[in-house]
């Protein structure tokens, strides 16, 4: 049960039930769709950039608690960051959920460290990173939807 509690931390459950920035962004100048064919998770990420800076970021779609909470918290933590900072945070986040980095990188990851429990559930890494890969595609203006397979 303790591993389960590590995975489904209250913050994650709370975000999955009431996701932040969960809406379309009509003014977005970047947009991408990502899906996880294994479980049917599907998200669209909308981004408004100004120069190098992420002015606004929102998402829509459906998925499991992990993927939805991750998308929600991603939008919160990347708003106002520049692209290089966002890429750096994703890199740290990816290391965190794959267990390559201990969960003490608080300074950069902040609240996102609640996802450290994912590393004990390798099949769920794709859920935790789906929104992030989709954001990357949005910023690179990739036309093809992102697939985790």
């Amino acid at each position: 049960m303790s591993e389960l509690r590590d995975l489904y931390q209250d913050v994650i459950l709370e975000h999955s039930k009431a996701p932040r920035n969960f809406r379309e962004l009509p003014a977005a100048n970047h947009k991408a769709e990502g899906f996880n064919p294994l479980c049917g998770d599907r998200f669209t990420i909308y981004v408004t950039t100004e120069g190098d800076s992420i002015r606004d970021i929102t998402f829509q779609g459906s998925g499991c608690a992990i993927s939805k909470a991750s998308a929600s918290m991603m939008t919160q933590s990347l708003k106002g960051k520049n692209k290089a900072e966002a890429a750096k945070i994703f890199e740290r986040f990816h290391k965190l959920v794959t267990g390559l980095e201990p969960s003490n990188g608080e300074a950069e990851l902040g609240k996102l460290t609640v996802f450290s429990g994912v590393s004990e559930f390798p099949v769920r890494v794709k859920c935790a990173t789906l929104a992030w890969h989709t954001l990357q595609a949005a910023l690179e203006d990739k036309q093809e939807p992102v697939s985790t397979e």
Partner: protein
Amino acid sequence: MSTAANKVDARTQTQPRGRAGGLQTQASALDIEKIRADFPILQKTVHGKLLVYLDNAATSQKPRAVIDAITRYYEGTNSNIHRGVHFLSEHATAEYEAARQTAQTFINAAQAHEIIFVRGTTEGINLVAQTYGRAQVHRGDEVLITAMEHHSNIVPWQILCDERGAELRVAPIDDRGELQLDDFSRLLGPRTKLAAFTHVSNALGTINPVKRMIELAHGKNIPVLIDGAQAVPHTKVDVQALDCDFYTFSGHKVYGPTGIGVLYGKSALLEAMPPYQGGGDMISSVTFEKTTYNKLPYKFEAGTPDIAGVIGLGAALNYVNGLGIENIAAHEHELLAYATEKISAIPGVSLIGTAKERAGVISFVVEGVHPHDVGTILDQEGIAIRTGHHCSQPVMERFGIPATARASFAVYNTFGEIDALVRGIGKVREVFA
């Protein structure tokens, strides 16, 4: 029973407990405890709990008899078949062909050469699409399937129809997950070259009225292929009584090894069909000018086959025969009735697929919880179920959901395991409360 004993025994409890009135337990003809002992993997613990394996529609576990048959083959018989004059080759050939006869008897095919060994149901369907289909389906023709098919009974026909300029028609299902038979009948038209449909739905458990469907198709001279992947493990199949033209199933869902399955076809149809793959064993003679194909069934078995797999499949079918498929069906029917009663009584849980006739499968969703999260939490309890779209995305779309959680049963499952599943779902609701 003391609480401690209760804890130890709960998971292998072979009789229903705390059952509400109405459902009577028949004395099972099978000793489930004894059967469980035949399956080594069922002794395994997962996350510190005794494994509760409820993902049998994906693949069943293998009894010792199957594992031993494969080991015995590799340790004592291994050699290539149909060509050697030496002792081992003759012995291997005899075992391989004996398994074909076992499969023939199992589905009551009229002749052994109507049994073609393939990799599984998927290959069986692709074989028919690529041989019979390519020879018979032309521009403007139609292939009819149903809205409850597995991707493997959709995509091969899409590929064929795209290639031939033909149209894939789909007979709809209702809100319970039952085929709308009138629409099916109406869609059998003058251009329909084949009707291909599942015997039992993998995502919903619906048992189709295949006998009636075949009669309807044959009434219009349309041949029929049946996807029997989810039916063969759970119900007696008699291809002659059904009068189907093709029937295909996978070994690994009926206690056999992965990578082997059976395509049954009526002799006359198979004779008339072009070969599937070219290679060794499927020929009578080869020159650079002309090749004469081998007779049935070898015409469709190019290359060295999965000999150990075939022998393992034979052992699996013999194992099922030993228990009696009717006894298996009766036990599973009780499990399904018990699970349906218990799971549908949990607040916030709805069943997806409530057809009157179902086999082996219970699909459900927990309100406010994605099936993937249900699967992870149950896994922590040592309970293996399938979550996702079950390779049936159109079915999910029909019900307006991305995925379901699916528990599916085999002969070794117990009422205690269903109780464990119910407790697990309780835990899911706790975590997400």
